[in-house]
């Protein structure tokens, strides 16, 4: 009983470091960014209140392709859901069933996750290269392209967005595979056995027993891959640069406006990115809850 009386004090002490970090670096900056976003601020000059002008400029001007960038990350998010996650799930199910070399395949598939995105970006830039690269020769030997080399990374070319998206999808297949593998392994063996005894084929066991009981993990994967797409930056920045419009993502617009001192505009981009992420997370949560 006398424990209760001293609890308030110890709650404050134990919670303090986390709350300080969280409020100082996440909560306060969200508020401050929202505040900055309504100022015309050309650093190092002073900021001048301008209402929603920054947002208007970002959504209408050709110089700051925020609107196009949102479309681009939606394409990326859609392809993550349609290509990346099914691929991860397929790998996880195959490996989760137990196959020779399970450990090896798991390790190799997870490897790109641990390699620096900067390295992956620089590496793919070389692979795409029309002169010393290997993507063109490989596609040619498969008969997919003709004699002409494709300029994948041509500034603002029509292949640029796809060229940025492919390594982004590729790198994180292993991440989701391992999450989903954990999900497959956590399904009680009795459940699977019961289904097998009832005459289900292994494929039916996957479809009707394993996948439905992985819902929690699948939700996490969907949230991570969609919000990850919405806030993506590294690979686009290295493959296409911050000033691109063809492959712009909201974060390259943010970094570009920041680097030329337009802090108000940059903050407006930040606000748009966080709204996108929150809305996506809430929607996905709601969708998964409805399925219950």
């Amino acid at each position, binding site marked *: 009983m006398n*424990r209760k009386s*001293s609890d308030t004090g*110890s*709650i404050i002490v*134990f*919670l303090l*470091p*986390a*709350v300080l*970090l*969280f409020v100082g*670096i*996440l909560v*306060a*900056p969200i508020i*401050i*960014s929202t505040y*900055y976003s309504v100022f015309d601020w050309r650093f190092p000059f002073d900021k001048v209140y301008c209402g929603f002008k920054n947002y208007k400029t970002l959504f209408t001007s050709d110089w700051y392709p925020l609107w196009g960038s949102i479309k681009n990350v939606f394409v990326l998010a859609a392809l993550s859901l349609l290509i990346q996650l099914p691929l991860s799930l397929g*790998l996880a199910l*195959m*490996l989760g*069933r137990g*196959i*020779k070399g399970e450990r090896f*395949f798991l390790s*190799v*598939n997870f490897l790109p996750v641990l390699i*620096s*995105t*900067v*390295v992956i970006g*620089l*590496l*793919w830039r*070389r*692979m795409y290269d029309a002169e*010393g690269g*290997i993507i063109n*020769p490989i596609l040619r030997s498969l008969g997919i392209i003709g004699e002409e080399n494709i300029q994948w990374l041509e500034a603002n070319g029509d292949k640029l967005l796809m060229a940025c998206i492919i390594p982004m999808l*590729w790198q994180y297949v*292993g991440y989701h595979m391992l999450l989903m593998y*954990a999900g497959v392994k*956590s399904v009680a063996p009795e459940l699977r056995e019961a289904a097998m*005894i009832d*005459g289900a084929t*292994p494929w039916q066991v996957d479809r009707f027993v394993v996948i439905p009981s992985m819902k929690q*993990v699948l939700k996490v994967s969907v949230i991570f891959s969609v*919000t990850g797409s919405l*806030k993506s*930056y590294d690979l686009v920045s290295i493959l296409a640069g911050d000033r691109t419009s063809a492959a712009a993502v*909201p*974060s390259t617009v943010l970094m570009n406006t*920041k680097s030329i001192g337009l*802090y108000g505009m*940059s903050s407006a981009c*930040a606000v748009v*990115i*966080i709204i996108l*992420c*929150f809305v996506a997370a809430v929607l996905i949560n709601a969708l998964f809850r409805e399925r219950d």
Partner: protein
Amino acid sequence: MAKDNMKFNSRDYSLKKSSPVGRVICTILLIFWSLVNLYPLFWMVTLSLKDNLQINVTNKFGLPKGWPSQWHWENYTHSELGLLTRVPVFFKNSIIITVLAIGIALVAAMMASYTLTRFQWKASGAFNKMFLLGITVPVQVSLVPLLVTTSQLGLTGTRISLIIPYAAFSLSMAILISNGFMDNIPKELDEAAYIDGCSRYGVFFRIILPLMKPAVSTIGIYSFLQCWNELIIATTLVTKEEMKTLPIGIRNLVGTNKIDYGMIGAAITVATIPMVIVYVLMSKRIQESFIAGAVKG
């Protein structure tokens, strides 16, 4: 009939015992995907050992011939690029920053989890939800405020200006995982300790912390993935060469110099090999820690 059924039932879910056709198809698919993962890395290494002529024309795909004398080791040792002197500095910075950030996140998360899982108080649920919501907050929102604040405080370009944000952005995930692990520690242990006269603090340090050791590597791996590659904040806050982290250091090294393809290959190989070695030595541990996070989280 009954016999048939028995046979059918005893068929196992494992691919090892399923039909050879399915097993072979699965193995082929897995080998194909492994090659898609491994070949680019192998090619990166070959790149670092060739000259431009080999890269562009004569030997696009494989290792150069004539090991070791005809391999172009000078890509690594070229003085203009200074790989072997500069990259270790980037590594040192990245390691210091990542380790301290993870340490701070770890301590703060375990302390917070202790109140969230062990104490009964009104706002506990609200705090829990708030921390959870933090998982989806991107680093981008903090960028301009951090830039302005650090320059006002005179901290621009210091390690601490990266450590604190990295710790904060790792925190939500760390709390989520830490909650999962702490829930699994039986509450009876606490009760026994209270009866023996332990305080709230005593229970935390003597009972909970020692039992949270398995959580450390799991929180560590998730936080590591968050911090090690971080580009946006680092690019913005760090300009001095001697403070650069690995991602911005390598990017800068390759971006600003007019250098041969082989040297680019050497730079990214040097940045990658230590990671790969650590991974090869610890892959089982790393994967198990990662999996524990997926299950507990």
